[in-house]
């Protein structure tokens, strides 16, 4: 065999295996970065995670600062976001998948939803500030923040629900019509029950986005040091990411530890929600197989 050719081939093979390692190490570095991030924050914050951290309000003194108001505020915020965004999101997905005629208005709505998904969250904050906080004079309340957050995650919920509804086999629809059910009955009793797993998966992931989102809350003027618990939808509040942002900004290192501890709490909430999302996904996959 030609020596040159042989050398060329072994060079190409060597290059191939070198590149494999290069590409693989990109993935490995990515995994290492996330490990480093979790380790660094975990090591700094874990000492602050005691009972008083959860039962204290925010404070000027880092040792006394706790996230009681923030934790309750985040839950209250979710109590607005979940029903509002689920209702609008599900109605939109059902309309677009089951009823919408193929015309320009439908195409416009679809294009509009994909545009909305790309709008930076801080711009949603400006919308909320003008419309909810000022024009509807809701102030920096749970309701104003909840409505803003609902709009922010709406595109994700709609797209996920559309995909879930689309994946319901037509045979189920036809069987339901064959039994004499109306379209609405079919949607309510056949399509939604079989799509609900995937709908929940997408929705839970979008709720976890809403829990961690900070920029819109800042623009809405949500305060940080709140010494009371919210009493109703119109009451002022603070939320977990706002509290973390405030602690992270302060120069004292003890506040950085509090921020780390707050991040641990936030991440635990998100991981739990993700676990639920995966559970619903697996369950709906099993159901579709049967």
């Amino acid at each position, binding site marked *: 065999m030609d020596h040159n050719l042989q050398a060329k081939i072994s060079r*190409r093979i060597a290059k*191939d295996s070198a590149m*494999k390692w290069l*590409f*693989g190490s*990109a*993935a490995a*570095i*990515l*995994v290492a970065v996330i490990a480093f*991030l979790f380790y*660094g*924050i975990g090591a700094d914050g874990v000492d602050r995670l005691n009972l008083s951290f959860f039962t204290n309000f925010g404070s000027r003194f880092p040792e006394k600062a706790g996230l009681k108001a923030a934790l309750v505020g985040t839950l209250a915020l979710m109590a607005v976001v979940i029903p509002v965004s689920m*209702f*609008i999101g599900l*109605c*939109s997905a059902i*309309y677009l998948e089951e*009823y*919408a005629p193929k015309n320009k208005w439908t195409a*416009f*709505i679809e294009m509009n939803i994909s*545009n*909305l998904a*790309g*709008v*930076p*969250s*801080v*711009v949603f*904050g*400006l*919308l909320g500030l*003008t*419309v909810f906080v*000022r024009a509807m004079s809701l102030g920096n309340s749970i309701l104003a923040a909840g409505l803003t957050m609902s*709009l922010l995650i*709406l*595109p994700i919920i*709609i797209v996920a629900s559309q995909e879930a509804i689309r994946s319901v086999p037509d045979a189920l629809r036809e069987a339901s019509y064959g039994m004499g059910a*109306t*379209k*609405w*009955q079919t949607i309510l009793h056949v399509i939604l029950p079989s799509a609900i797993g995937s709908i929940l998966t997408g929705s839970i992931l979008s709720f*976890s*986005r809403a829990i*961690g989102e*900070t*920029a819109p809350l*800042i*623009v809405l003027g949500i305060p940080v040091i709140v010494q009371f618990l919210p009493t109703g939808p119109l009451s002022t509040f603070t939320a977990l*990411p706002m509290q*973390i*942002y405030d602690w*992270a900004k302060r120069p004292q290192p003890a506040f*950085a530890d509090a921020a780390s501890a707050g991040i641990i709490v*936030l*991440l635990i909430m*998100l991981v739990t929600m*993700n676990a639920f999302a995966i559970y619903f996904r697996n369950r709906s996959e099993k159901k579709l197989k049967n």
Partner: protein
Amino acid sequence: MSSIQPSEKARTRDIIAAAKKKERFGKLVPYLLLAVTSLTVLATFGIVYTLLKETFTFFTHINISDFVFGTEWAPFSNADPSFGVLPLLIGTLKIALIAILIGVPAGLACAIFLSEYASPKVKKIVKPIIELLAGIPTIVYGFFALTFVTPLLQTIIPQLKLFNALSAGIVVGIMILPMIVSLSEDALSSVPASFRDGSYALGSTKFETAIRVVVPAATSGIAASIILATSRAIGETMIVSLAAGSTPAFNLDLTGSIQTMTSYIVQVATGDAGYGTTIYYSIYAVGFMLFLFTFLMNRAALYIKTKFREEY
């Protein structure tokens, strides 16, 4: 065959009446749903309307060409406030550029590894980790940049300031990585296996196949993923607010404090600028620019993806 009893007749009538009532409701349903769906359109109009309205008010205070071409951004100066947006624009571009330089090569390498090299087992481990990375709130990344990445970089570059564009840009690059990986991986995976088989049959190595056959065939999807990721980097707020500082800078220095369009909005919102002041309206003008940039980039990404999609 017995004849139908009168009582059965009445029951049938009831059933039909109930069905008709349901049908009437059923006819209403699409209109009710359409009304709710139209709220999403209303949201977009709300965004465009509020941004435009307040931006117009801003331009009654400030000359539009001073805003677009001005090189000094000093809204808080009492003696001589100036609203030239170029420093904010440059700050934003610095962040986006560093983020792309970090995110695109690493993201593409990762995507090629996952779609061309990784065994299903490795894929099953790495993909959820990338999804996890995508779900981390940006406030966490911002804290990470400020407390871990900046000190680390300061050991290499001693003159690096506490707030700097470099550290924030690198972490924004890490933040957009999952997006590039998953969108590019989708594009690479959808290239038909017959392309690869043909390339192997001609004697190509895996690397040659990936670079000369698979990647070119997936170009439109990869380009779209890069544009979308850039748009995300431009709109990113928390990382830059925490780690990049709040000093508008009209220069090319990466080691010092800068201000981006997003972090200016945050600075005003956390400050005490009153309603109706020029500063108050300025965040809408900056927000409108931000909206315009991200909107155009998202449309461009969609256009490239659909227009140049290879049909197999």
